[in-house]
């Protein structure tokens, strides 16, 4: 995005250190952890030039599929199929297959919806708000986080869609002129929710895709040069006596570069790396960032209105919108870390881009947002007492000490206590520890939504109080949604550029025309990406 770059001398020193065999320094980890605010740490390590950045990131797509990918994909796929079968089972049988015959009629479906939408908030926060705030460390994780956002919102949108019961009437959610001559209730936050999540998904998808176009063009150009072999489809398995002419007639050979270059060529929309393209790209990027930034705050505010606009004690509170937004960012960052830490370990060279500093920054955001959420939990209790509304007070007492007390205290531990460990540097730099905490935060945020939704179990009419228990269909649908999410994510890792190549290059020292490496960076060395590199360096 911008061409602000780390201080040259400092960056060169630290980057160089890494290259000279200092792989893990206890103080600075990979050379990027420092408490000195005057030092600007490098964002890309490993003495890389532009070409090696392209080679590494494209290599994850172009090289042979890593061995771990297949079992991971198989497991995700099985779970995704289980989830899909559960959804079909629900559609042909009815929503009664969930434990919904109960005052908690929103059930796990809405718990899962809010959880997934919340997770989907990190992508846009990282790509839009951190972009506008010129936080350059975001460039190595934004593509990754945006993809996670898209897939999380897909999982989220599934749940209200199937929760309506008769899914073929799901179009009633939208204000479409119809033969009943009625509109959806425009005063209902459930309708606002449709607009909010729909807008968010559209803008996130556009932002993600638009940002990827130059990288897709890079992959397209490399595909043409790379693959020379042909992919043969035909009866190669056939027994030996098959006549040669039959074999010949039934065998189709397609040059592999055609498949790849067509795939990336269509997606790249004719990108030519021209200056004019870059100029439009930069403008569009900053405009979309501007459009997306308020959405980060609005979407989960509107989701919180689903609860807050009702008159249920425990839901009808003004603190809901900010507390939901904080919780969403909290869970979103946790999910990014959950995915990023294994990916960083599994993909060669990713450590050079996703530095210890980047992960440390994310831990700090988790502590910040976790504290905000904790403050909100305590403030809800305070207001319930201070507001002197006995029903409100009772609702909160039931939350903490009622039938769902265990969910409440799991939530308190996971969301309030666990993120406080990141005050300690050891915790912020130990990847295994961070990974465990990120899982705990994900669990905690799911329980937060469970605690909120099960407020319905103690409604105004005491005779109809009830306890929600999930059925096996509830549980498998939720597990299946994780499978759908992971399937999509693994496909993304395999076939799309996981890091924003052009943006990463922009935050490297060489992007500055005055940098000593600028001229000897191999712009004119016959590398076919010289056009891309030149235009990036040129502004």
């Amino acid at each position, binding site marked *: 995005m911008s061409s602000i770059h780390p201080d040259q001398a400092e960056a060169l020193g630290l980057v160089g250190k890494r290259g000279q065999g200092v792989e893990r320094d206890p103080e600075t980890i990979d050379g990027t952890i420092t408490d000195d605010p005057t030092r600007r740490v490098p964002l890309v390590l490993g003495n890389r030039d532009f070409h090696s950045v392209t080679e590494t990131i494209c290599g994850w797509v172009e090289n042979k599929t890593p061995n771990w990918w297949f079992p991971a994909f198989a497991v995700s796929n099985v779970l995704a199929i289980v989830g899909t079968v559960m959804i079909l089972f629900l559609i042909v049988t009815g929503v009664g297959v969930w434990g919904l015959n109960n005052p908690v009629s929103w059930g796990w479906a809405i718990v899962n919806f809010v959880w997934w939408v919340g997770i989907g908030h990190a992508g846009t926060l990282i790509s839009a708000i951190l972009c506008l705030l010129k936080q350059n460390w975001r460039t190595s994780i934004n593509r990754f986080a945006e993809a996670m956002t898209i897939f999380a919102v897909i999982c989220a949108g599934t749940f209200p869609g199937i929760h309506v019961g008769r899914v073929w009437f799901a179009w009633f959610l939208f204000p479409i002129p119809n033969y009943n001559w009625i509109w959806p209730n425009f005063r209902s936050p459930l309708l606002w929710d449709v607009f909010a999540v729909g807008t968010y998904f559209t803008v996130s998808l556009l932002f993600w895709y638009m940002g990827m176009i130059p990288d897709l063009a890079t992959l397209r150009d490399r595909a043409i040069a790379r693959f020379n072999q042909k992919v043969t489809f035909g009866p190669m398995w056939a027994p030996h006596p098959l006549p040669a002419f039959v074999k010949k007639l039934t065998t189709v050979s397609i040059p592999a570069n055609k498949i790849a*270059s067509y795939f990336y060529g269509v997606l790249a929309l004719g990108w030519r790396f021209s200056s004019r393209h870059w100029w439009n790209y930069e403008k569009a990027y900053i405009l979309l960032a501007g459009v997306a930034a308020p959405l980060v705050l609005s979407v989960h505010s509107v989701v919180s209105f689903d609860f807050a606009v009702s008159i249920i004690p425990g839901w009808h509170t003004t603190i809901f919108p900010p507390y939901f937004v904080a919780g969403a960012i909290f869970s979103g960052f946790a999910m990014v870390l959950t995915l990023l830490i294994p990916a960083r370990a599994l993909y060669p060279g990713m450590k050079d881009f996703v530095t210890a500093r980047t992960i440390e920054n994310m831990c700090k955001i988790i502590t910040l947002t976790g504290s905000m959420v904790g403050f909100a939990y305590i403030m809800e209790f305070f207001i319930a007492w201070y507001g002197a509304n006995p029903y409100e007070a009772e609702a909160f007492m039931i939350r903490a000490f009622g039938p769902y007390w265990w969910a409440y205290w799991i939530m308190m531990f996971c969301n309030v206590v666990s993120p406080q460990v990141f005050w300690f540097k050891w915790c912020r730099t130990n990847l295994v520890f961070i990974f465990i905490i990120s899982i705990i935060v994900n669990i905690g945020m799911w329980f937060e939504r469970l605690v909120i939704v099960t407020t319905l179990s103690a409604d105004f009419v005491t005779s109809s109080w009830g306890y929600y228990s999930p059925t096996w269909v509830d549980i498998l649908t939720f597990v299946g949604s994780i499978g759908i999410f992971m399937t999509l994510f693994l496909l993304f890792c395999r076939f799309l550029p996981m890091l924003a190549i052009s943006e990463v290059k922009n935050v490297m020292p060489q992007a500055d025309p005055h940098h000593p490496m600028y001229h000897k960076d191999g712009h004119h060395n016959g590398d076919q990406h010289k056009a891309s590199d030149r235009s990036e360096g040129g502004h």
Partner: protein
Amino acid sequence: MSIVFPRWTNAVPGVLVATLGVLGLGVVWATWYYATPDFWQVGYEPDQPVAFSHQIHAGQLGIDCRHCHSNVEQSGHSNIPDTATCMSCHTGAGEAGYLNASLWAVHRGNSDLVRIRAAYASGEPIRWRRIHKIPDYAHFNHAIHVNAGISCYSCHGRMDQQEIARQVHSLSMGWCLDCHRSPEEHVVDVNDPNIRRITNLAAVEKQLANRPAQLATGVELVIQNKLQPPQHCGACHY
């Protein structure tokens, strides 16, 4: 930049957008035109087991609808008359059985009436085909509407001109709500000397066609009779 696609592919996005646009508009138009009760329901005119003519009975002979559909003012369901009602005129029991003796010759050997009499004798009902259907989850109450001054005409049209009974309105929810939102366009005054009977279809048609006059009396009737047609879900879906 490498060349992947030939030059002619430059036209593809434009052609694609245009094609999808036309297709999309076509789908919207087809849905608007075909996927409606106006297309699928209006004009439903099944062959009945007995060729009863409303045109002869209600039109030529001027028999009041309520002579046969006798419960319409008391019951939510407007009854289909049983064969005993037919037999009040068409007994076939000699000339004395007829109000108008001249009809005896015409109807003695009428095959449909022979079947009606056979059905009456055996107690086996005639299996009429139902024409006006609304879903199970929607309830319509005839008595309330008729007593509030909504003529048969408003829903069934000129039944007195129909040789074979036919559905003339869509009976869609939007069609119901249209009237519930502006009842003054349909409510008629049975005390009006020109109308006199709620079943006077010709007179009601004439009255409703004269829109300014209808609105003037309609608004007055709505106020006078405190007509507040409900628009909430529970009014019909209970």
